[in-house]
């Protein structure tokens, strides 16, 4: 597994999208690079982006390392990705609409009933209600890895509230500020339309009872949350309210904001809190964050919630295996993006295989995230492997396994200069009246040499992601 695809150099040749960057890279003396790196860090600190991506928790004042070397896609590469991502986002939404309705895919035997209906993320409370336009997941974050010039795999889907998009926007902002010449020399598709597109998307799913320009708000758990910066950043960019549960109340079947001028109706809630904390009357009775009565207002069409409560049933790691099947079942199309082959330890045969090949596989918890509770076979000690063997044998249902992927690398500034490091990609697909995808995403990079774990909690950093115009 030493043959990794290098996105910049392919068999000794510089690949086309990186051609101009090579000169830039070579022309930059080490001192300048260090100066720029310090400048970037100062900028990030000043703006205050010091939060953990992907709900990893940890120190809220921690800065995620920013790598100045951009990751580049050609227009052609992107078009294919875009098609695949949109296709997947459509299929995931079709699946959600189905399982909260008639459940045809289960009846057709394409996915086991248990995986859907006994899934912790399946919310019985929202069955019988169809959200506006039948959309459940309005912001779909799809994590992709690349293993070759034409080979992209979906690592996981995020249908609830994928975070990190402020990094995509700020990384670009900072690159443009520090290296304006790069943007003159390369024709790079802009990403700053994201906020507008997000606002349009949210406005397009206003509830049935809203008969005017909808009022939109982002619901945050509060300023102690590690992603608070992102919430306030997005609210500011979209020009919408940033609200906490205590700012809202339900009356007459609608949701109202407490303002200095009296109650103001809120039509669309982009929530950045989990289902369990939305409404103590419906979900967790001990939730202090929630808004009592919210779910009644939602289910009677008085307010829209994005993503819809219950959307999480589409993105767990066990359901993931069936997404290509969803594409075929609902869209009648062949999936453009491939899944990583996955063994379900819940199945006896798969489990046997996994236990026999632990040293080669990546094993993940079905509900885990953030790179925790994970075994990377080839990088683990015998003890770690044996420990995982016990865990799997104890509770096989809780684990899936995948082959260790040869994640592509891109050049990255490291202590010694420039070196290839493994990357992944999270684009953010918006699903509303239209399906939109800004040309770009968040590239995460494993800064440790040889590491395949890109999570910021495990030494990962972020990069600006370019899509070149034609």
């Amino acid at each position: 597994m030493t043959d990794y695809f290098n996105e910049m150099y392919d068999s000794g040749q510089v690949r086309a999208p990186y051609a101009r960057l090579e000169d830039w890279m070579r022309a930059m003396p080490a001192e300048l690079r260090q100066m720029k790196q310090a400048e970037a860090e100062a900028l990030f600190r000043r703006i205050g982006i010091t939060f953990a991506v992907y709900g990893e928790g940890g120190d809220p004042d921690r800065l995620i390392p920013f790598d100045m070397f951009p990751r580049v896609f050609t227009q052609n590469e992107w078009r294919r990705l875009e098609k695949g991502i949109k296709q997947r986002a459509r299929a995931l939404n079709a699946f959600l609409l189905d399982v909260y309705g008639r459940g045809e895919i289960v009846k057709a035997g394409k996915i086991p009933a248990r995986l859907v209906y006994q899934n912790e993320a399946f919310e019985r409370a929202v069955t019988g209600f169809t959200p506006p336009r039948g959309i459940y997941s309005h912001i779909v974050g799809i994590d992709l890895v690349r293993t070759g010039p034409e080979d992209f795999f979906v690592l996981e889907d995020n249908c609830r509230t994928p975070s990190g998009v402020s990094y995509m926007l700020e990384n670009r902002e900072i690159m443009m500020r520090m290296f304006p010449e790069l943007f003159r020399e390369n024709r790079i598709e802009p990403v700053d339309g994201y906020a507008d597109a997000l606002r349009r998307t949210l406005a397009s799913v206003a509830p049935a009872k809203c008969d005017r320009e909808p009022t939109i708000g982002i619901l945050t758990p509060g300023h102690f949350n590690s992603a608070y910066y992102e919430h306030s950043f997005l609210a500011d960019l979209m020009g919408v309210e940033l609200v906490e549960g205590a700012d809202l109340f339900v009356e007459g079947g609608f949701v109202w904001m407490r303002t200095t001028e009296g109650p103001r109706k809120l039509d669309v809630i982009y929530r950045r809190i989990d289902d369990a904390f939305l409404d103590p009357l419906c979900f967790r009775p001990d939730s202090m964050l929630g808004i009592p009565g919210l779910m009644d207002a939602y289910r009677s069409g008085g307010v829209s919630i994005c993503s819809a409560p219950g959307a999480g049933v589409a993105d767990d790691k066990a359901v993931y295996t069936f997404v290509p099947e969803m594409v075929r079942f609902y869209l009648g199309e062949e999936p453009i993006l491939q899944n990583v082959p996955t063994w379900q330890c819940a199945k006896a045969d798969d489990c046997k295989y996994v236990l026999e090949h632990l040293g080669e596989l990546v094993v993940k918890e079905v509900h885990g995230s953030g790179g925790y509770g994970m075994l990377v076979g080839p990088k683990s000690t015998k003890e770690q492997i044996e420990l995982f063997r016990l865990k799997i044998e104890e509770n096989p249902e809780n684990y899936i396994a995948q082959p260790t992927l040869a994640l592509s690398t891109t050049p990255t500034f490291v202590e010694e200069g420039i070196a290839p490091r493994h990357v992944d990609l999270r684009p953010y697909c918006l699903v509303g009246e239209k399906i939109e995808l800004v040309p770009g995403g968040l590239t995460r990079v494993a800064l440790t040499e040889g590491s395949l774990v890109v999570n910021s909690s495990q030494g990962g950093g972020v990069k600006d992601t370019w899509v070149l115009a034609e």
Partner: protein
Amino acid sequence: MILTVDHVTTYQYDQPMRAAVQSLRLFPSRFDGQRAITWEVAVEGGLRGGAFRDGAGDKVEGWSLRGPVSEVTVTVRGQVETIDTAGVLRGHRETVSPFAYLRETAATWIDERVEALATEAVRGAESGLDRAHALARAVAEAIAYVPGATHAHTTAAEALAQGEGVCQDHAQALAAAARAVGMPARYVSGYLYARDDGAPHEAAHAWAEIWVEGIGWIGFDPANECCPDDRYIRLGSGLDAREAAPIKGIAQGLGEERLDVSVALEAVQQ
């Protein structure tokens, strides 16, 4: 049978609350066994919110009260015509898959005792229906009707361990036991008309429904060792008592709550 219901619930607070919000599941289910002739739900001084019918067929209505609130009175009055369907929930429109009722909750946690009781009960039972009946019998035998022995948050496992309880404990225990042997089951809340037969029960009642393949949802009332008939009015269901509660409410503030409930069911002379 034609039953009249007069159900008044009062929450009193020892100091005024900022506001109160309620979610009411207080409407007779629509199925072959019952039909509301008249039915009115009102919250005194409250504002009616959104209403909808959920995937389980229950009608839910939200209410809110502006502060200061020192008392909340929920009044239910109506007349329902019932017939005996031998516990079968026939003609009930719902979209939720029965598989969604295999999930455990905190109140219906399946511990070793629940599992043992359920496994033992269904041994030898052939059909799904037999198994369901056996489970209901086992729960009825395992928990004696003793008012005051348990409280609102007692779990199914705790009630079984204690061997005493009320209808809520019976219903939760039966739901848990059925799920333990892979049968979808749910908690049902409603009313029960007490004939002068000396049987100990309250007019506000709860029982369980078990999904029997080939038949559908069937009600079982372990507290009275029978299946719901024309003395029963069904309101709503859920995975446990909390989910199926006819009244869920929250009042914001520091006041202590005092609850007062009166339910009167009468049969109309025909």
